[in-house]
């Protein structure tokens, strides 16, 4: 990678374990409450590792013909779902990787999967339609065709699903089969994040802006001036800060007080190439970013959105996905070469004094 010297973990990143999967790793996540780490690669390989030491538990190849597009681990961590270009969704058991149910949704790519926070529903976006299934794979709800391909889905509360597509965000009550709210904006929305209380809807747009709405007031605003399209968005667990990026810079908007309208955002400039993944820790104001240059950095943020790096490591190649362990005591990054890196992240709090056990 240009301008980046390989370096070993620094700051609060400490040696953990590394492993390899067969192809470009595009999805990852922690299962069984952090005991297991699952990685999906672009060719449809799925690999489960022991969370502490990276020992392989099971692996499967070619789970989706044409390739894998998305993976979502159930909040309880016992099962997970994958989807691909074959128009299928598979719900599998984490312990053995055994397929519990295959859902055939037709010809279109299945690009987005999200479990509801209580784990009762799995939302699936395929082309212009969104489907909701329960844990055992029974269909519970199907949307009408959206005006264009659904570009993002997320749950706002246990029965309410938000979808983004070209020109609009829609909130569906999937239990009573009705539309709760439609937020319209003529623009190509490419990403969506909701604040933890579900009130703020933030969307990255193809024309290099972030558009957001406050559901309670119906007010909307647009943040422009991004050098690239903001494909990566993440709210911290309190909903105070929204980290956004489509370039090598991370722009952080603070919703404290009257912000972010009319305020200067915080800026983090740690990478030499555009950000390829972005995630706040499960608790607290720590944001981790992975870049096309192969570097991974964790930064501690202040209320105004500015902050300082507290840990960094070099993952070797374009970072395909990053994931904080549920207790935030480890950070995982998977890359375009199929390399999996898990670093211990030592935070000394009353609850977690030692990092890795």
């Amino acid at each position: 990678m240009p301008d980046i010297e390989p370096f070993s973990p620094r700051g609060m990143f400490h040696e953990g374990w590394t492993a390899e999967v067969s192809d470009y790793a595009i999805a990852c996540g922690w299962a069984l409450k952090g005991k297991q780490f699952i990685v999906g690669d672009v060719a449809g390989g799925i690999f489960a590792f022991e969370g502490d030491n990276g020992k392989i538990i099971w692996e499967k190849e070619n789970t989706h013909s044409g390739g894998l597009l998305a993976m979502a681990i159930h909040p309880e961590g016992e099962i997970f779902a994958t989807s691909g270009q074959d128009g299928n969704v598979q719900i599998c058991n984490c312990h053995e990787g055994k397929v519990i149910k295959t859902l055939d949704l037709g010809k279109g790519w299945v690009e987005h999967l999200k479990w509801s926070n209580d784990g009762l529903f799995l939302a699936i976006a395929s082309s212009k339609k969104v489907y909701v299934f329960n844990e055992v794979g029974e269909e519970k709800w199907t949307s009408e065709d959206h005006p264009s391909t659904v570009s993002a889905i997320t749950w706002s509360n246990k029965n309410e699903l938000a979808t983004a597509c070209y020109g609009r965000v829609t909130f569906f009550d999937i239990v009573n089969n009705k539309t709760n709210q439609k937020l319209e904006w003529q623009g190509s929305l490419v990403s969506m994040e909701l604040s933890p209380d579900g009130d703020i809807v933030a969307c990255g747009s193809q024309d290099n802006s972030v558009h957001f709405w406050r559901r309670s007031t119906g007010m909307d605003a647009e943040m422009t001036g991004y050098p690239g399209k903001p494909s990566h968005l993440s709210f911290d667990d309190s909903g105070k800060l929204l980290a956004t990026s489509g370039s090598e810079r991370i722009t952080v908007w603070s919703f404290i007080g009257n912000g972010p309208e009319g305020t200067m955002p915080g800026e983090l400039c740690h990478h030499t190439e555009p950000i390829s993944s972005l995630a706040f820790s499960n608790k607290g104001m720590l944001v981790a970013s992975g870049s096309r240059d192969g570097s991974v950095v964790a930064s501690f943020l202040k209320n105004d959105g500015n902050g300082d790096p507290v840990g960094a490591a070099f993952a070797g190649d374009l970072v395909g996905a990053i994931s904080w362990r549920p207790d935030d005591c480890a950070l995982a990054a998977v890359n375009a070469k199929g390399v999996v890196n898990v670093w211990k992240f030592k935070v000394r709090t009353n609850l977690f004094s030692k990092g890795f056990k």
Partner: protein
Amino acid sequence: MSIKDKVPVTILTGFLGSGKTTLLNRILSEEHGKRIAVIENEYGEVGIDQGLVINADEEVFEMSNGCICCTVRGDLIRVLGNLMKRRDKFDYVLVETTGLADPGPVAQTFFMDEEISSEFTLDGIVTLVDAAHIDQQLGRSDESSEQVAFADVLVLNKTDLVSDDALNTLESRLRDMNRMTRIIRAENAKVPIESVLNLSAFDLDQILKRRPTFLEPEYPFEWTGVYDLDAGKYELMLEEGPDPEMSLVALVNQGESEEELKDGAESSVRLYAEKANTLEPGNTIPYGEHINLKLDDKGNKSFILNIEKPTKIGLFTQHTAEEFNMKVIKREENKEIPFNTERFWQAEHEHDDEVGSIAIERFGDVDPEKLNTWMGRLLSEKGVDIFRTKGFISYSGNPRRIVFQGVHMLFTAQPDKEWGNEPRRNQLVFIGRNLNEKEMQEGFDKCLI
């Protein structure tokens, strides 16, 4: 990442039934050792046999500012974004668009989307034309004109169904619409694979190599002959030709080098701009004047050239000498004097179609700031009507030439090779609808230092 490391993409357009699928199948089945990914969004035609074929939806996204020249294809971004991750498995991408599609949003995707443009490079646009039906289509739909205007290569297919004369007429009509394009005739879409892949179509050097005159200005005359004449009386004799009259400017002391010929041409353009004096057969031709030879009588017609002392005479004629079998004959000896040098010029065409191309060529440096302002305004006002832009320019103070290419309002400019000893100049081509050549040339001239 340099342009060489990026995966090249060819866009294949053409009306339904023009033979796109046949061409695709030919490309895929040929032995070329390349793994080609095909992104297609047309259903219902003959299926594609081999290769990695992915269906796309043709989902066009307009930007929030409503600017239709910055639309992109959302489906392509998704599909290419995914292909990007599998790049070790293929080395070329072909995007087939439906017969009714405007190639603009497809091409713009490679300029507008940073992730896509960092990994892929638009190598060229190939348009298939059904020789038997395109004539009607050009009159009827905007899309077919646009597909012609966007093309780097036009494959004139099904030539076996049309006469040679009709093909020639069609080819010249297509060329009027798009001066940059390369036209290949084909039966059953049988074209050499290298003529549609790896075109480096945005490489203006290649285009110039192929068609050295395409950037030349259009002159009101087609031909110049330079005759070395002693003192005496000569006759300019013309047989019956395609026109009942022909404009001409005769210049004395006309040099024969390329530079002198171009000087003569510039002077003649100015003279041609003046009203022509009509000359009846038997009259004497004045020098340095715009005249119009009356040729409507039957048989041979002669006009007189008086030479007082030995000189070189340059005749700048509206049509080529060949068309009238034009000869210079020394009266006393009744002997034909052949020309020493002849030069053909890119002649003015009458543009029947609204879609056309214009070229600007100027020596010297431009002021980057002025050029930016001019180009910015031109593209924001006329972006909808300007389909493609290509060229290279000489920025003052920059040792390297700047190469640029654009689609509608979007363009990229990047430094290219060093000028070295080459004279510094600017060459630009615009293809679009209802372009005002004079206005654009004047606009560009103001950017020169």
